[in-house]
């Protein structure tokens, strides 16, 4: 009986202590900072070379598969072709990478905003990594801060969620916790874009039934809220539904960027004392 009482006392004490630490951390964020700096950096440092090695192995394997199919020809020519094909595949991969990087370099600078280029290291990691997120190889050392917008030349992909010294976690716009103020490009209808936890579509909420929008129209960031600069393309309307029980339309939007195949990204960094409404004019045609 004495032991049970002692156990209950300990349980109550531990719970109170835990909740106290949790609340203190929720306000100060100290423990989050420490664990992010340890966790993200260690995982990033381990997975960064692993990522390079896996990509190389994948490329070699792809080249090998490709070559196996060509080996029915002449034995003498086979070796020669094999060498050339490996070289071509390697150059093709390089060319594709060069094309992507060229696009990134051509990215239209937004007035008063500069950008930091980065690579995607891995997608969500660990049992508690439950949000749709990616980890990129730029951190506070590169000037990355929490809540900065992350884009590609095709459009917005998310915002910085956690920052460590060398790596940062990006919350993708497709996650349920992501909310982006948007405006339709043609009819200038405002709404809030929310992720649905799936990479296939998102939803624009709080658009009145009377507001004009049409399927195929592009939503861009509105600049309201002060996180994202105005005018970054976000998604294309794929479906509009009306319900008798709601004052709002249900607008389903397809993201312009395929987050599953992302390799390179740009982090938008505001210069000193900027006007958040400085527009971004994308070069890519949608």
């Amino acid at each position, binding site marked *: 009986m004495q032991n049970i009482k002692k156990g209950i006392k300990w349980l109550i004490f531990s719970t109170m202590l835990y909740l106290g630490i949790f609340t203190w951390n929720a306000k100060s964020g100290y*423990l*989050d900072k420490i664990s992010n700096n340890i966790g993200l950096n*260690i995982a990033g440092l381990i997975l960064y070379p692993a990522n390079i090695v896996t990509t190389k192995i994948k490329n070699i394997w792809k080249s090998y598969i490709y070559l196996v199919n060509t080996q029915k020809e002449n034995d003498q020519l086979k070796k020669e072709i094999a060498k050339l094909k490996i070289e071509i595949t390697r150059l093709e991969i390089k060319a594709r990478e060069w094309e992507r990087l060229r696009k990134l370099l051509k990215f239209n600078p937004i007035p008063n905003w500069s950008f930091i280029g980065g690579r995607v290291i891995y997608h969500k990691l*660990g049992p508690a990594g*439950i949000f749709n997120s990616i980890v990129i190889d730029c951190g506070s050392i590169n000037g990355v801060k929490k809540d900065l917008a992350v884009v590609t030349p095709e459009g917005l992909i998310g915002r910085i969620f956690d920052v*460590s010294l060398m790596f940062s976690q990006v919350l993708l716009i497709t996650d349920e916790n992501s909310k982006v103020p948007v405006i339709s490009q043609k009819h200038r209808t405002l709404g809030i874009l929310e992720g649905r936890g799936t990479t296939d579509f998102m939803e624009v909420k709080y658009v009145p039934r009377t507001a004009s929008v049409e399927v195929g129209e592009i939503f861009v960031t509105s600049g309201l809220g002060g996180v994202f600069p105005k005018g970054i393309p976000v998604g294309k309307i794929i479906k509009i539904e009306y319900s008798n029980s709601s004052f709002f339309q249900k607008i389903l939007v397809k993201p312009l960027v395929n987050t599953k195949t992302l390799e390179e990204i740009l982090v938008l960094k505001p210069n000193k004392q900027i006007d958040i409404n400085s527009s971004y004019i994308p070069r890519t045609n949608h």
Partner: protein
Amino acid sequence: MKKLSFFIVVTIIGIFLQSLFMGSDFFLPAILLILQNNNVHLAMITGLGWLLIQEGVSSLPFGSVFLVYIAFYIAFYWLKFYLKTQSFWFVLIMGCFCGTLYYFSISIIAEISNFLINFDILTKNFLLQIILFPCAWMFYNFLYKKYFSSISNIF
């Protein structure tokens, strides 16, 4: 030195496996293995290191993994009264317990932090954790016996 190499090896393998099997914890099977070998201090120190890594890569605020790790240690000593720690049943039950703990801990922390979570993904992670836990334990057990069996029990 062997303790440190065991920690480094498991950290590298664990992180790599976690990037392949999203949503699973590959450090808890190693902690269980260390506890089964009565290396409590090593389990505490390595556990602290792995806890910080898991919390760091987590999307949620600090606390969810901490809750799981603490409950895992308590569960180990509680289950020890009823089952032999070296039996495979013990590992299976601890695996189920680990999956369940993550399910509830993430749900609770997300709820009190006002975050939305996808319960389909959470359920998938829960099942994956239960399946992968014994497999990871067997793999670490093999490594431990082959390369690290001489790790001293006295810290």
